[in-house]
């Protein structure tokens, strides 16, 4: 707690002042210890393990209460890899003193070293013996760690046939089951940085009849995700880690899937097919290739096929890279596939080269009711346009919307709500808002969120006077819809 020294002092002095005003010194009545054990244990279970164990030193009432806690969270965001020994000791001591009969959550995040294996084995065995339901074992490598070799932690075989897991998260270890996988109660599976293969995925899915959420995060070896599992509702594929190979395509098909998210850096072209139950899709990715040559045509085709196959999806989120590919499509005056989407979220910072893509999306969404522009999304990776392309197809971003004809169907008939998250009062945004206000005939509500999510906290972007100016300016834009309301938040 050294580093927190200053801030801690400040907080405790503030608290002291506050307490004095409440007419109590340390001899004041102790309200919290009057709560029943179950409630105190519940409170302690919301704390990370280090804090939970510290409550054992508070007072006699609190002594050993923490040993019955059901959530053991040993992850520490301020963790230094120097303390691997310390953390291992801490976990071992805690488990010795632990006195509960059942563990609900067991979560460990630690840097992997060779000598850790035996310790981790014991921890997993301990947790499983207490019928743990949510197990989260995540390693990360030291300076030279390579997850894809035998140095990383080999998961014990009894892990693969466990019937009490409901949520499992494994990161950066060796996933090599020798036999069948049987996770009878598993609902939520998250695999990070593992080497997988199609067979493995099939094994996992057939061994997990209740699986609803599958999150594949930076895994390798995924070529086809042909999922026939009837229970799987949400599939998230994030940042596949393979050698870029433009000949291979990641195919995703899942008849019962309700939500699909393809996010991050993909090293394969993607293709989606046979997703009839899909309600929500998110295309927030960028394809990395190993070729120097212009790959626009390949990407354009890929995205067009994807959008065609997703035309029935009601709620589509699309990221900057994909929008810009659509822009290429649009400036070459090629039609974009029509769709039935009702809600469209644009995860982009809104640059000039997003505009044709957005126009294309508006044109192809005649039933659109909700439009969200999310400028704070962390996934807004840009497309690298070729110089030739830029020269050949350049346009005036400033006037883009004025030159847009014909007006999209959705604007005339359906668009009711527009939201802008992370509004920065840039030219592009103001023009887009102006365009929407001018043409959306049934618009009911336009909500502007002026906070931006940067560095994991929300920050205000404007001073109140600036906000007032912007608000006035916006309110002066002509509105096509008589009921339209602009809300600032």
């Amino acid at each position, binding site marked *: 707690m*050294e580093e927190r020294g200053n801030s801690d002092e400040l*907080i405790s002095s503030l608290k002291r002042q506050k307490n004095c005003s409440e007419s109590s010194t*340390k001899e004041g009545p102790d*309200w919290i210890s009057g709560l029943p054990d179950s409630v105190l244990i*519940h409170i302690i279970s919301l704390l990370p393990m280090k804090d939970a164990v510290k409550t054992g030193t508070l007072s006699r009432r609190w002594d050993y209460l923490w040993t019955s806690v059901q959530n053991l969270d040993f992850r520490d965001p*301020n963790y230094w890899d120097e303390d691997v020994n310390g953390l291992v000791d801490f976990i071992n001591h805690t488990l010795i003193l632990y006195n509960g009969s059942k563990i609900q959550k067991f979560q460990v995040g630690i840097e992997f070293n060779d000598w850790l294996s035996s310790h981790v084995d014991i921890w997993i065995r301990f947790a499983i013996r207490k019928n743990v339901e949510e197990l989260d074992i995540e390693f990360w490598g030291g300076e030279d760690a390579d997850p894809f070799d035998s140095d990383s932690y080999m998961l014990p075989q009894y892990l693969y046939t466990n019937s009490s897991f409901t949520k499992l998260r494994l990161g950066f270890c060796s996933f090599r089951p020798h036999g069948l996988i049987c996770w009878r109660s598993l609902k939520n599976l998250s695999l990070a940085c593992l080497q997988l293969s199609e067979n493995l995925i099939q094994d996992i899915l057939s061994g997990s009849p209740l699986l609803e959420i599958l999150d594949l995060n930076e895994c390798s070896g995924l070529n086809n995700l042909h999922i026939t599992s009837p229970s799987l509702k949400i599939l998230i594929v994030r940042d596949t880690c393979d050698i870029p190979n433009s000949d291979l395509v990641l195919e995703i098909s899942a008849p019962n899937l309700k939500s699909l998210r393809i996010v991050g850096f993909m090293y394969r072209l993607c293709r989606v097919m046979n997703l009839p139950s899909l309600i929500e899709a998110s295309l927030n990715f960028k394809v990395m290739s190993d070729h120097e040559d212009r790959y626009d045509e390949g990407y354009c085709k890929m995205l067009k096929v994807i959008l065609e196959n997703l035309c029935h999806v009601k709620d589509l989120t699309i990221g900057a890279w994909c929008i810009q590919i659509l822009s290429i499509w649009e400036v070459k005056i090629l039609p974009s596939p029509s769709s039935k989407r009702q809600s469209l979220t644009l995860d982009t910072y809104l640059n000039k080269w997003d505009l044709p893509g957005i126009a294309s999306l508006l044109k192809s969404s005649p039933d659109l009711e909700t439009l969200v522009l999310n400028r704070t999304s962390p996934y807004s990776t*840009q497309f690298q346009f070729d110089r030739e392309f830029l020269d050949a197809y350049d346009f005036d971003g400033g006037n883009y919307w004025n030159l847009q004809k014909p007006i999209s169907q959705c604007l005339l008939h359906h668009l009711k709500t527009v939201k802008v998250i992370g509004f920065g009062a840039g030219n592009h945004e103001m023009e887009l808002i102006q365009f929407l206000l001018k043409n959306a005939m049934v618009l009911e509500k336009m909500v502007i969120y002026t906070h931006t999510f940067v560095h994991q906290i929300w920050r205000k972007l404007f001073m109140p006077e600036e906000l007032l100016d912007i608000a006035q300016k916006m309110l002066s834009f002509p509105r096509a819809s008589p009921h339209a309301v602009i809300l600032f938040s």
Partner: protein
Amino acid sequence: MAQESTGSEHSHQVRSSSVYLFMVGSYLQMSEGDMAVIKPEAMKSYIWLQTADGSIQQVEEEVAMFCPMIRQDILTGMGSSKNYTISLPRQVNPAIMSLILDYCRFHQVPGRSNKERKSFDEKFIRMDTKRLCELTSAADSLQLKSLVDLTSRVLARMIEGRTPEEIRETFHLPDDLTEEEKLEPLRNTADDPRIRRLNQLYARKRKELKQKDKLKNVEVEEDRVDERSVDDLLSFINGGDEDSKGVSAAKHKKKNHRRKDQSMDSSSINVNKNHMKSDILSSVCCNGDVNNALMQSLGKTSKVQDVANDTFAPEVEFDDGDIDDELDPAMKEELDREVEDFARILNSEWPERMQEILTSGQERRVVPMSMNGDDSLGRFTSANQAAWCLSVHAETLYQMRNNLRSAYSFRFFEKRLLLRTAVVTIQNAL
């Protein structure tokens, strides 16, 4: 009290608001006369509750049904009239009761969105510690789990991250354990500053030994850098890009990937993402002694960067915790052209830069390093590790940049690189 037995929504609202006003106004006593006005075929029915101090209160049925314990009693027929009130547990006093009823009244309406509920909850729990504890106790006795969860979370927030002394201060807990009884498994590890320092020294020694080993293998592996670097770069980019639901406690972005067929160069590119987290940097910066070291080494490295490429946006990247995973896109367009220049300049001007740096400023720790073909650079100070890394890998970075076709990735990478080496510097300085 007016009781209109019509089904229209407006009168429904009037009725409920009049009930509420009545309750607030008269503090929960019903007279016999009022009872007579209530028509038996009233659309809304009310439940009678009695708190431990004897005061009786009337509540709309659906609000009362939201509490599991009261619900049980209602279903067995109690609470239907003043004479058959439902007795509430002793933890529930009238003031707390009205708070709980507010909570129930809001949440039992089915049509509310999650956002509205959260917003209400946040405003609702703003109260002093004493009341919060009373509320928790009352909610627990009524088995109102959602309210217990809410208040518990607030109390947990007040405990988390504080020292035991502070927690005792906040809640007026007696310090009645002997020193021996305060069995802290923690005690042996991170909190004791001497142990911590010892751990750090051990770790540093370990690192040095590792590096010495690795450097022997470096020449062999130098030419196989590229693909690996690309992927690492990308994994760094994604380091901050967790799918986060706001400020959740689990900021776990610790991933470090390597490709199977390629081994790594020593140190620089293998950066542990964890060190890149702004929490770490800011927590380090809080420590006064270290702050100077950090700022100096950062100043040095950023000076290097600026000097090497004056067209590079001089955005202050090293503020506390200012690891900006979201680049200003205005920069992005510039960067695309500039990064080529940067790599070129770095490569050509590097030897002169290194000499400059070596002769100036801090000689904190000398880490012996040598790279293929760079023997002339001799020994470096640890504060210049970043510079060294940049020079060695400018070529590969340039190639990576082409591979990625994305300039800001380059910038992320080198930013993280610089931060990493700054962190190493601090560790060495401790």
